[in-house]
C-alpha cells in the first residue's frame, strides 16, 4: 500500500469512527424521541405533540374484534377512589408507566400482561390538600442517558418534581434533594410591603401553584410548567405569577426560567397598564408543551391572567397572557410570540399541546406549529419565525359595558384553516327539530346579548340582557385532551365540543367583589385573606353567579335556565354536538368532519322528537384522539344506553382518509384520559382511561385475539 493510500485509508477509518460516534451520540444516547419502534415514550407519543404511532396491526378490518387484555382499577392507589382519571401511559422497553389514584401514584406494569412491577406515591399532607391541581394528573415523562440510566419523571400534586429509577421506582438520590426538586421555591407573587410593591416568595404550603400536566423532556433538559386554581370565579386579584423552568435531567439543577409576565425593563412589561403587573398573577402554562429539538425551540401555550372573565384590575393587552411563546431550549429566552387573544375575557386560555408539522405548501417545505384552541381555530405559524402561515387578521370586536372594563378593540381572526368547531351561535345553528322548538329558542335568545361572532363580552344581568351568548369558551372546542397529527400524510385530526353554549354573565353581586374599587390599593392573594384555611373560612363566594343561572324553566332533569326554557331539555344549538375533524395542513382546508358519539339518551328518548328520524347527533364533551397508521381512535365522552347494547360508551375507530367509522368496542364508562398504543412481542395494544359518574376509574388494555396475531417473523418487534 502506498503512503497516499494508507493516509486515505486512515482518513476513511477515522471518518467512519466519527460517523459511528455521532450516530451513537444522536440516537443511542437519547431517550427514544417517538413511536417509530412501537413504544410510546412521551405523553403525546413524541415531543412534537403528534399522538401518532405507525402501528397498523389493529386496523379497520379487525378493530371490532378487540378484546380486553387486562385492566387496572385505580381505586386503591390513593386514600379514596378516583372518578376522573386523565392519564395516558408511557410504554418503554416492554414496561408501562402511568399515574393513577387520588394521591397521583406512579405505577409500572408489564406491558404484555399488566402485572404490577412497582408503585410509588408521596403523601404530601396539607400541601397536597391545598393544591390547585389535584387527582392523578395526566402522566409521566422519561429520560435516559442511553447507557442504562433510565428515569421516570413527574410532578406531584404538591408541586414537587420527582425522579424515580425506572427499574424499581426508587427516587434518584442524586437528583435535587433525595430525588426531588421543590418547584414552589422561586415562585413569586405581588405584595404591598410598606407601601411599595414587591415580588416575594409564595408560601410553600398555601401558595397556589401546581400542575396536572407532564414535564417535557428534550435531550438532557426537563421543562416544567405551572398552573393555578381556575380563574373564572376568582375574587382575588393577586396570585402566583406564571413561569416555566428548565432543569438538568441528571442533577435537577435549574437551567433557566421564563417568566410569563415580563418584569420591569423586559419586553412586554408595558402591556400591563396602571401598575397591574405588580399584583396580577396566573398567566401560567397549565397544559402540555412541545419542542423542536433540532431548532432548539420550546413552544409554550400560555393561559389567562388572574380573574378570567373580568379585566378591570389588569388593564392592557397583558403579555404573554393567552399567547403562544417560542423560547430557546438552552436559555429560555423568548424567540417569538403571538398573542392569540388580547386582554382575555372569555377563558380562551391556550388549552392544548401545540403540534409541530412539516408540510409542503405551494411547493415550499414549511415547518409549522399549530395551536388548537377552545374557540375552534387551529392557529398556524411558521415555527421558526412565528409568522402566520395563512393571514390572521385583526378585526374589530364588540365592546364591554361592564364598569371599569377596557375591552380590547380588536382580536385576531385566522383565515385558514376553517374552524373545527363552532365559536359563536349562528342563526342557522339554532335548534330546528320542529318549527315550535325553533320559535321558542329564538324567543329565549331575545333575553341575551347575542351577536353572531366570537369575542362578545360578558354582561351584568339587567332588564335588557340576562347574559351573553357564547359558544366555545371554557368548555368548547379542544381542551387539555388536545389534537393529533399524522406526519406521514400532513393531516391534522381533532375531536371537539361543538355545542358548548352558555348565557355568560357576571352577577352584580360577584362584580361587587371584584371591581377595582374593592381592591385598590390593598390587593391581596387568597392565602392572605383573614382566616384563610381556618375552620369556617369561606372560599371565594360564588353565590353571585346564582342569580343569573337560576330562572325557572327548562326541565327534563337536565337543568335549565332562561336559555333552554320550554325546549324540553334539548340543547338550544343544533347537532352535531361533538365532532371529529380532519384538516389538510398542506392546503389549510377541511378534509372531512363527522359527528362523534351516539345520540345522547336525552335526545333519542325526548318525547318532543317522538316519531322523528334524528340522524346521529354526536355528543357534547371533549375527548382526546390518537392516530395509528390508518385510524383515528377515540372514545365517547358520554355514557348512553341505546337499545342494541348495554349501557356504556364506545371506543371508536375512524378511517383517516374518509372519516368513516370502521369499528367500535364497548367500554363500561366514558373515556376520561387520552388513549395510546404500543407493540410488544409482535402484539399491538391500546390503553384507554375510563371513569366518571358512579364508575370509578380504570385503565383498560385492548388487544386482538391470539388467532388474529400474525406468526412471529425473524425480526421480532418490541
Amino acid at each position, binding site marked *: 500500500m502506498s503512503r497516499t493510500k494508507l493516509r486515505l485509508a486512515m482518513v476513511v477509518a477515522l471518518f467512519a469512527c466519527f460517523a459511528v460516534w455521532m450516530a451513537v451520540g444522536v440516537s443511542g444516547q437519547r431517550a427514544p424521541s417517538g413511536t417509530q419502534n412501537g413504544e410510546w415514550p412521551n405523553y403525546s407519543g413524541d415531543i412534537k405533540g403528534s399522538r401518532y404511532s405507525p402501528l397498523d396491526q389493529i386496523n379497520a378490518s379487525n378493530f371490532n374484534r378487540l378484546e380486553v387484555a387486562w385492566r387496572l382499577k385505580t381505586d386503591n392507589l390513593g386514600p379514596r377512589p378516583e372518578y376522573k382519571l386523565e392519564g395516558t401511559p408511557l410504554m418503554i422497553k416492554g414496561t408501562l408507566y402511568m399515574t393513577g389514584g387520588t394521591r397521583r401514584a406512579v405505577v409500572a406494569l408489564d406491558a404484555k400482561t399488566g402485572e404490577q412491577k412497582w408503585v410509588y406515591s408521596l403523601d404530601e399532607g396539607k400541601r397536597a390538600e391545598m393544591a390547585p391541581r389535584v387527582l392523578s394528573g395526566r402522566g409521566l415523562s422519561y429520560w435516559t442517558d442511553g447507557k442504562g440510566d433510565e428515569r421516570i419523571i413527574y410532578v406531584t400534586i404538591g408541586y414537587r418534581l420527582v425522579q424515580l429509577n425506572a427499574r424499581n421506582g426508587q427516587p434518584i438520590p442524586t437528583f435535587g434533594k433525595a430525588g426531588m426538586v421543590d418547584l414552589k421555591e422561586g415562585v413569586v407573587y405581588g405584595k404591598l410591603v410598606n407601601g411599595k410593591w414587591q415580588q416575594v416568595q409564595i408560601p410553600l404550603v398555601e401558595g397556589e401553584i401546581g400542575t396536572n400536566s407532564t414535564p417535557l423532556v428534550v435531550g438532557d433538559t426537563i421543562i416544567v410548567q405551572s398552573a393555578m386554581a381556575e380563574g373564572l370565579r376568582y375574587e382575588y386579584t393577586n396570585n402566583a405569577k406564571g413561569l416555566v423552568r428548565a432543569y438538568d435531567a441528571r442533577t435537577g439543577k435549574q437551567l433557566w426560567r421564563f417568566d410569563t409576565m415580563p418584569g420591569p425593563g423586559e419586553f412586554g412589561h408595558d402591556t400591563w397598564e396602571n401598575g397591574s403587573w405588580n399584583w396580577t398573577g396566573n398567566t401560567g402554562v397549565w397544559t402540555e408543551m412541545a419542542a423542536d429539538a433540532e431548532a432548539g425551540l420550546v413552544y409554550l401555550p400560555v393561559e389567562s391572567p388572574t380573574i378570567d372573565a373580568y379585566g378591570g384590575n389588569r388593564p392592557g393587552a397583558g403579555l404573554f397572557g393567552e399567547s403562544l411563546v417560542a423560547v430557546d431550549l438552552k436559555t429560555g429566552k423568548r424567540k417569538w410570540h403571538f398573542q392569540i387573544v388580547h386582554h382575555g375575557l372569555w377563558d380562551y386560555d391556550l388549552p392544548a399541546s401545540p403540534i409541530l408539522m412539516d408540510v409542503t405548501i405551494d411547493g415550499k417545505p414549511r415547518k409549522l406549529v399549530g395551536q388548537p384552541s377552545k374557540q375552534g381555530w387551529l392557529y398556524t405559524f411558521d415555527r421558526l419565525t412565528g409568522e402566520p402561515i395563512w393571514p390572521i387578521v385583526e378585526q374589530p370586536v364588540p365592546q364591554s359595558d361592564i364598569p371599569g372594563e377596557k375591552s380590547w378593540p380588536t382580536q385576531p381572526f385566522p383565515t385558514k384553516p376553517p374552524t373545527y368547531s363552532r365559536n359563536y351561535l349562528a342563526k342557522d345553528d339554532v335548534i330546528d327539530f320542529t318549527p315550535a322548538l325553533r320559535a321558542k329558542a329564538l324567543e329565549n335568545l331575545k333575553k341575551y346579548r347575542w351577536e353572531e361572532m366570537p369575542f362578545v363580552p360578558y354582561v351584568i344581568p339587567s332588564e335588557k340582557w340576562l347574559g351573553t351568548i357564547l359558544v366555545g369558551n371554557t368548555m368548547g372546542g379542544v381542551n387539555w385532551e388536545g389534537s393529533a397529527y399524522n406526519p406521514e400524510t400532513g393531516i391534522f385530526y381533532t375531536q371537539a365540543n361543538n355545542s358548548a353554549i352558555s348565557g355568560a354573565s357576571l352577577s352584580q353581586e360577584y362584580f361587587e367583589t371584584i371591581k377595582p374599587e374593592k381592591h385598590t390599593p390593598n390587593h391581596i392573594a387568597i392565602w392572605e385573606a383573614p382566616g384563610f384555611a381556618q375552620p369556617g373560612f*369561606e372560599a371565594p363566594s360564588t353565590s353571585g353567579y346564582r342569580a343569573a343561572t337560576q330562572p325557572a324553566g327548562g326541565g327534563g*332533569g337536565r337543568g335549565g335556565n332562561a336559555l333552554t326554557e320550554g325546549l324540553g331539555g334539548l340543547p338550544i344549538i343544533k347537532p352535531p354536538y361533538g365532532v371529529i375533524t380532519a384538516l389538510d395542513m398542506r392546503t389549510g382546508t377541511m378534509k372531512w368532519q363527522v359527528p362523534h358519539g351516539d345520540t345522547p339518551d336525552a335526545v333519542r328518548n325526548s318525547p318532543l322528537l317522538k316519531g322523528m328520524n334524528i340522524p346521529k347527533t354526536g355528543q357534547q364533551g371533549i375527548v382526546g384522539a390518537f392516530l395509528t397508521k390508518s385510524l383515528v381512535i377515540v372514545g365517547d365522552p358520554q355514557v348512553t344506553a341505546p337499545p342494541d347494547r348495554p349501557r356504556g360508551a364506545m371506543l371508536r375507530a375512524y378511517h383517516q382518509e374518509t372519516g368513516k367509522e370502521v369499528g367500535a368496542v364497548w367500554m363500561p364508562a366514558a373515556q376520561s384520559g387520552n388513549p395510546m398504543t404500543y407493540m410488544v412481542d409482535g402484539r399491538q395494544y391500546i390503553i384507554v382511561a375510563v371513569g366518571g359518574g358512579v364508575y370509578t376509574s380504570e385503565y383498560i388494555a385492548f388487544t386482538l385475539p391470539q388467532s388474529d396475531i400474525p406468526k412471529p417473523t425473524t425480526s421480532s418487534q418490541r
Partner: protein
Amino acid sequence: MRHVTTRVALIAGIAGLGMLCALGAQDMRSVWDGVYTEAQAARGAALFDKACAQCHGPSGEGGGMAPALVGETFSANYAGQTVADLFDRNRTTMPVGREGQLSAAQNADITAFMLQFNKFPPGETELSNQSMLLRQIKYVVER
C-alpha cells in the same frame, strides 16, 4: 287448631304480600315524585356554595377541571341509577381533599339542591340521609 294455623298463615301471607306491594310501590318512586323539599334544597344551596361551587360552579354548570353537575353528560351518568348512587358519590368522594367531612344530613341537603338545579320538582318530604332508603328512588331523566 289446624284451621287457626292456616288462617294465621293466610293472614301473614296476605300481610306479606301487602308489604311486598308496598315495597314494590316504593320501587316505583323516582326523582319526579317530589323527593325533597324547597327548604332542604335552600339549605343545600348554602352548603353547595361553600363546599362545591368553587369547582363545579354555583349551579353545577362545571368548570374547566370539574365536571358539570347538570346537562347531558351528568344525566347520562346517573340515568337508570338511584339517588343513593348520587348521594354516596357526594358523601364518599366530595369535596376533593375533604371527603367525608360533611355530615350525612348536609350531604342529603346538597343532593336535594342538586336535584333542584336539575329541575326535578320539590315535594312535601325531605330527602333521607340514609343511603339504603335512597336506593328506593330511581334517577330517571325523562318524566
